[in-house]
C-alpha cells in the first residue's frame, strides 16, 4: 500500500554493487541484494566495513527516525536476541533527494512459519516459549512489541533460536500501538483495545500459534467474531495440546508473558506422550493425505499414460500391419520363385 502525501518523493531502488555513503558519518555500504520490503522502507543486505549488515532505506524520514529511536534504546541495553543490533543512522544524498537510512545487524536464518511447518507440534511450543521469554524482558523494560507476526520473526541456526527481525512496531507501554497487522490485532477481532500493554502482545502470540495451523490465515466473521476464532482453535489437531493457553492468551487472562510461558512449558513437558501419538496420528493423516494425493496423481498420470498408451498401441498396430504386409509380400515372392 502506498500513501500519497503532500511530500512527494520517489521511492528509491538500490541496485547490487551501488555504494551508499552516509552524508554525516561517511560510512560506506556496498549493496548486495534486496532482503525485503516493510511498511516503512526497503531492507537490503550490504557489505559494510566490518562485514555484512542489513540496511533499511526509506523516502519518509518520520517513521524511520522513530524506528531508529527504538533501535537505539535497545542498543543501550543490548543483550543477545532482543532484536537486531543497531549500527549507524545516516542520510544518502541522491539527485532525487535525501533518503534517510540506518544499518543494523544482518540476521541470517529460516523464516518462522516454514521452519515450523516442517516440524512437529513440540517445536511450535518451544519456539513460542523462547519468544515469550524475550517478550517478558521487553515488557519489563517498559516496551510492547506491537506488530508481532511470523514475517517479523526468524529462526537462527544451531541451536534453533527465534529472533526478532523488524522492531518498527515496538511501542512504549501505555501508548497507542504504533503498527499492527489485522490478523494479529486484538482490536480487529473485538478482543480489546489498541493500547500498548503486555496482554496486547500475548494476544498476538496466540494468533501466531493459530497461524501455524492456518498458514493462509482467515478473515473475521462479521456476525460472530470471537466465537468463530475460538472454534477455529478447536478444529485443528496440532493446536489441541495448546488450546487452553491459546484461549487464555486471546482473552487476555495472563498478567505477564512469564505466566503464559510457564503454562506452555508445563504443557510441553506433560504432553510428550500425547504429542508423539498426535504426531503418529498426524503422520498417518499425512500418509493418508499423501495416499490421496497419490491416488489423484495416479489418476492424472493414468490419463496421460492412457493417451501415451493409445498412441503406443497405434504405432504397434501399424507396425504389426506393416510386418503382416511384409510377410504376405515375402510369401508372394516365394510363390513367384516357385
Amino acid at each position, binding site marked *: *500500500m502506498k500513501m500519497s502525501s503532500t511530500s512527494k518523493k520517489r521511492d528509491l531502488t538500490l541496485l547490487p554493487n551501488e555504494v551508499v555513503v552516509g552524508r554525516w558519518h561517511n560510512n560506506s555500504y556496498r549493496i548486495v541484494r534486496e532482503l525485503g520490503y516493510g511498511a516503512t522502507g526497503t531492507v537490503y543486505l550490504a557489505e559494510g566495513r566490518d562485514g555484512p549488515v542489513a540496511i533499511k532505506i526509506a523516502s519518509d524520514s518520520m517513521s524511520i527516525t*522513530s524506528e531508529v*529511536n527504538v533501535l537505539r534504546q535497545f542498543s543501550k541495553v543490548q543483550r543477545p536476541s532482543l532484536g537486531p543490533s543497531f549500527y549507524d543512522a545516516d542520510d544518502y544524498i541522491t539527485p532525487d533527494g535525501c533518503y534517510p537510512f540506518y544499518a543494523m545487524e544482518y540476521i541470517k536464518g529460516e523464516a518462522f512459519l516454514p521452519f515450523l511447518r516442517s516440524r512437529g507440534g513440540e517445536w511450535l511450543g518451544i519456539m513460542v516459549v523462547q519468544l515469550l521469554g524475550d517478550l517478558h524482558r521487553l515488557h519489563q523494560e517498559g516496551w510492547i512489541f506491537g506488530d508481532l507476526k511470523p514475517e517479523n520473526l526468524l529462526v537462527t541456526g544451531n541451536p534453533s533460536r527465534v529472533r526478532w527481525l523488524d522492531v518498527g512496531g515496538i511501542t512504549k507501554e501505555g501508548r497507542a500501538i504504533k503498527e499492527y497487522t489485522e490478523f494479529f490485532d486484538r482490536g480487529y477481532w473485538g478482543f480489546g483495545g*489498541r*493500547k*500498548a500493554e503486555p496482554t496486547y502482545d500475548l494476544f498476538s502470540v496466540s494468533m501466531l500459534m493459530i497461524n501455524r495451523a492456518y498458514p493462509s490465515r482467515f478473515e473475521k466473521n462479521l456476525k460472530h467474531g470471537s466465537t468463530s476464532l475460538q472454534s477455529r482453535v478447536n478444529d485443528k489437531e496440532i493446536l489441541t495440546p495448546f488450546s487452553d493457553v491459546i484461549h487464555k492468551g486471546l482473552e487476555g487472562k495472563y498478567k505477564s508473558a512469564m505466566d503464559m510461558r510457564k503454562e506452555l512449558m508445563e504443557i510441553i513437558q506433560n504432553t510428550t506422550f500425547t504429542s508423539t501419538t498426535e504426531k503418529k496420528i498426524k503422520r498417518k493423516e499425512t500418509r493418508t493425505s499423501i495416499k490421496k494425493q497419490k491416488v489423484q496423481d495416479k489418476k492424472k498420470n493414468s490419463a496421460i499414460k492412457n493417451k501415451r498408451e493409445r498412441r503406443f498401441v497405434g504405432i504397434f498396430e501399424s507396425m504389426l500391419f506393416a510386418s503382416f504386409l511384409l510377410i504376405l509380400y515375402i510369401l508372394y515372392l516365394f510363390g513367384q520363385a516357385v
Partner: protein
Amino acid sequence: MKKGTLRQILLLTDGCSNTGEDPIAIASLAKEEGMTVNVIGIVDRQEMSEAGVNEIESIAEAGGGISQVVYARQLSQTVQMVTKKAMTQTIYGVVNREISQILGEEKELEDLEPEKRGQLMEVVDELGETMDLDIIILVDTSASMKNKLPMVQEALLDLSVSLRARTGNNHFALYSFPGKRKDVDKLINWTPHFDSLSGAFKKMSTSGVTPTGPALQEGIGIMRKRMKKKGSDEDEFYLEEA
C-alpha cells in the same frame, strides 16, 4: 502550556464531485483555517476513474493531508493509518516551521544530523500521542456507495478503537452528503467514541449528485463553530507547511 487540538476532516467517497464549489479550492480554505483534509477513495470491483483519483489526490494535497484509494475490504486498516499518519505529518510540519525559525530560513528537520533528528522525532511522537484530536467525518452516501456503507461503518468503528488507545482526547462527528434537503446531514454529533454505528446510514439518498465541495464547506463551518464554543483560551495550533 496547553497542547492545543489537531483538527481533521476525513472525506470518504467513491467518485467525482459533480455539483457546487470546487472541493480543491475549499480544501485549501480548510488548510488556511488550520485544519487538515484527508481523503479516502473507495473502489469495489471496477477501478476508479482517473478523474476521480486525481480529484481525491488534489483535495488532500490542497488540504495538507493524505489521500489513498483502496478496496472496500481494506478500508479499516487504511482509515486508521491515514488518520494517524496525517496527525504526525501535521505536527512534523509545525515542528519543522519552529526549527526554521530557530535555525534560519533554509533549515528543516532533514538538515539536522540523525541523532538530533531522533530527539525531535521523540517530541513529535509524544505530541501525536497526547494532543487532542477533533475529526469531522464526511461520508458520501450517493447511490453508488450503498453496498460499501457496511464496510465504512466497520472502518469507522475500528478508527474509534485505534484512537481511543491514545492518551489525548478524541472527538468525532459524522455527517453524510448529499443530505435529504441540504448538502449534508448530521448523523452523529460530537462524541468521544463510536459505540455503534448500526443504523447510522439509514437515510440514503438515491440522487446522483455528489456535492463534495459544499460538504467540505459545511465541515469547515461545523469545525469553526466548535472552535468558538470551546473558547479562545486554547492555544491555537496553526500549521503552515513549507
